[in-house]
């Protein structure tokens, strides 16, 4: 063997050995966990308080849209809440694969009217979204909300796996939690719950409806339901809360299914105080705010008033 040949052959074997060895040492005991994505702060959606206007207005009318318009006017009209050019995200309660008559989801007529109001006030972009329990497509279709909202000019957006942002809820129980981005990347947030009975939290109205912005292990929140609702309500301060009490689900909530469990109340509430809204709303279920754990805890945490009359209450018949 020639010297040149010897050097060439042993050289390339040595080079490969060196690369193999150094690769092994380079990756030895490396931490491979990728850095957690940045945690997002929730923007503030509230508008300035106006002591001359009520914090809660209730209107009754057989036509849900009329009832809604009257209560919205009483609380200051849409112009108080929406500025031209803004993006608005509306969060109705779209939890279950049920029809509107079954009162498991927010009345689609109210959602449609809300969209039209926002667009009339000059909003650039109106999004309607929710994280449903049953399949999102079926739920949005059969609740009638997709149809009404799209017809009124909104975008109906369903949640996909990568549509969540890690948000800092800064609560006692809820610290960081995945939140659907449509509820963060927006200028205004309108909460549109429906009044329903619930076996654990007595009622699901405004504050409980906020569960629907969360991803992750949502079904474990029931283990401390009052605290988790209040943490969430402290974190999300909606611009406006519109409570649908046109049909009220008295039993079999939150999913219902039987028309015998539905009371027709023909009422719509508009509120800037979500605790007051819950406290008045729960009366449709034959309860009082003082009897409901999360409403009591919310007042204690300074989120609003159980005695809704103190929040400024107006009733239009």
């Amino acid at each position, binding site marked *: 063997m020639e010297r040149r040949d010897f050097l060439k052959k042993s050289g390339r074997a040595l080079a490969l050995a060196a690369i193999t060895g150094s690769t092994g040492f380079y990756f030895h005991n490396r931490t491979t966990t*990728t850095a957690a994505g940045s945690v997002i702060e929730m923007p503030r959606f509230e508008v300035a308080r106006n002591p001359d206007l009520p914090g809660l207005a209730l209107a009754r009318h057989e036509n849900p849209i009329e009832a809604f318009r009257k209560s919205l006017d009483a609380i200051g009209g849409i112009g108080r809440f929406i500025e031209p050019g803004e993006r608005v995200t509306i969060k109705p309660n779209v939890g*279950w*694969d049920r*029809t509107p008559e079954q009162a498991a989801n927010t009345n689609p007529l109210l959602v449609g009217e809300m969209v039209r109001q926002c667009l009339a006030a000059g909003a650039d972009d109106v999004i309607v979204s929710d994280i449903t*329990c*049953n*399949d*999102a*497509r*079926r739920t*949005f*279709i*059969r609740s009638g909300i*997709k*149809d009404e909202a799209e017809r009124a000019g909104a975008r109906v957006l*369903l949640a*996909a796996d*990568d549509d969540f942002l890690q948000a800092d809820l800064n609560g006692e129980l809820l610290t960081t939690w995945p939140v659907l981005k449509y509820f963060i990347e927006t200028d205004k947030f309108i909460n549109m719950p429906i009044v329903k009975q*619930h*076996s*654990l939290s007595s009622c699901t109205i405004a504050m409980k409806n906020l569960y629907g912005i969360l991803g992750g*292990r949502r*079904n*474990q929140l*029931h*283990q*401390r*339901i009052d605290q988790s609702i209040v943490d969430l309500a402290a974190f999300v301060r909606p611009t406006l809360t519109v409570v649908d009490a046109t049909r009220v689900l008295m*039993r*079999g909530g*939150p*999913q*219902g*299914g*039987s028309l*015998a*469990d539905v009371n027709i109340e023909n009422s719509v509430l508009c509120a800037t105080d979500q605790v007051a809204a819950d406290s008045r709303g729960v009366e449709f279920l034959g309860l009082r705010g003082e009897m409901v754990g999360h409403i009591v805890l919310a007042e204690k945490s300074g989120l609003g008033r159980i005695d809704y009359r103190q929040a400024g209450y107006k009733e239009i018949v």
Partner: protein
Amino acid sequence: MTIKTVRNLRRILQILFFLIFFWLILQTNFFFDMAPEENGQIVLPYPVSIALEFDPLVALNTLLATGTIYKGLLWSLVILIPTIFLGRFFCGWICPLGTLNHWISEIRSERIKRKGKNKIESNRYKKYQRIKYYIFLFFIGASLFGVLQMGLLDPLSLMARSLGTAVLPGLQAAAEASLSWVKSFGIAPLSAAAEYLYDIFSGIFLIYRRAHFHAIISIGLVFVVILALNRLYTRFWCRGICPLGAMLAIFSRYAILGLQKNSGVCDGCNKCLLHCQGADNPDVGSVWRQSECVLCLNCQASCPNGSIKFKFFPEQESTPANPGGTQKVDITRRKVMLSFAAGAATVPLLRSGDMFEVNTNPRVIRPPGSQRESEFLSRCIKCGQCMRVCPNNALHPTLLEAGLEGLWTPVMIARIGYCEHTCTLCGQACPTGAIRELTTVEKIGNDEIEPNRIGTAFIDRNRCLPWAMATPCIVCEEWCPTSPKSIYLKSEIVYDREGKAVEVKKPYIDPNLCTGCGACEYACPVIDQPAVYVTSIGESRSDRNQILLERKRNKS
């Protein structure tokens, strides 16, 4: 029209029928733009399983197994009757699996056996091509005694199953993984470009909720092996295995279209053999086999001097120099009887085991509207359309849970997806009536009609939070879709480790009301092995698999 034009027409139709088949599979799903009817029921806008209804093998076997031809299966005559006159045009012009095999076979190979003289040799009729007749007769023998196994190897069922439960979910997983891989570099324009590509892709192939299927490996592997066999022999599947091909071959016994050979002008170039798809000996001097020919027309189109021609009523007298078309299928009477008997013999073998109706797996929860198990197994062709259409990914192909006989038939795995209360899509998609078509009222019941039940839920009190861990929960009750709810709660004071009193609501199941939909099991926060779970007992389709002597009426 010259022969080359007709061949091009065949190529175009192959592409077209393949795309139609693929499009129908893509449409076998729940879409966000579907509109409910007046009564709230959602109905599929297209007959998504219509391709399977054109399959004569499905029609014949379900006819033998059940004594009826279900709904759209009469369409299969549209394929079968022209076959009697023309031969296996379906295999060469229409069949999507045949087309796929055709394309893959035509990819150039480096293997010496797939080139030149060797390829010509491999395209001559071979004895392995008889195997498909044995397979066909085996399935017929089994079907005659009520066991339907043809779905395992029927090309359309196999194609629908493989695309729907293995290929498309695999593509979706690959697309999602590629997207997040590209995004992980953190280069903004690159991520944007990837997103853009992904959006185009997702508009065509991807569904809203990525499906995960049980037994996907077994289905995917079979499909890959079938495609890979094309690298050994052109259209190995079509020549040697396909039971539908065998059936059509037998029905082409009296075909009036055939190949006429003219030895006078042939110079023996063998180009006809080089391009032959069916291995039916088109060359002058050997015996042409009608039963193997898929009418691809490559032989006539590549013949330089016009010595072979397809024509109606070809001359059939046979001389050594000029053999006429032989119409006979190359199987002996003894082998016919043997394969038929083997098929019949599997019936007692499969059904005398314990898995069939005696020691059934409690987790074999059939889709809503399913027939009782023996009837179900004599109808299900394992096409997977119910699994593909299910919006909740609730239905999955079995492996051996329902016995060997039930391989790849649908069961619900509630942990992955539950049966949506008012959804009736699986029955709409089923081409053979193994799953009956239900109306919403038949599914959920009302004051007069009992709902369709697929099982009953049970609480595992050792794992349930209120029962075992002094912790409030009630998620199962919240999710229960019946009205009134089948899960009811009783408040009770329990004591935690420190002796502190905690008020919890303990869930109970009312078997009078439970339909076994599995929503509770799906939602239970005890994820790995849920504290509430469904088993098949109480299912409407069975007389035997019941708990209650009588059900109290569902009065709300």
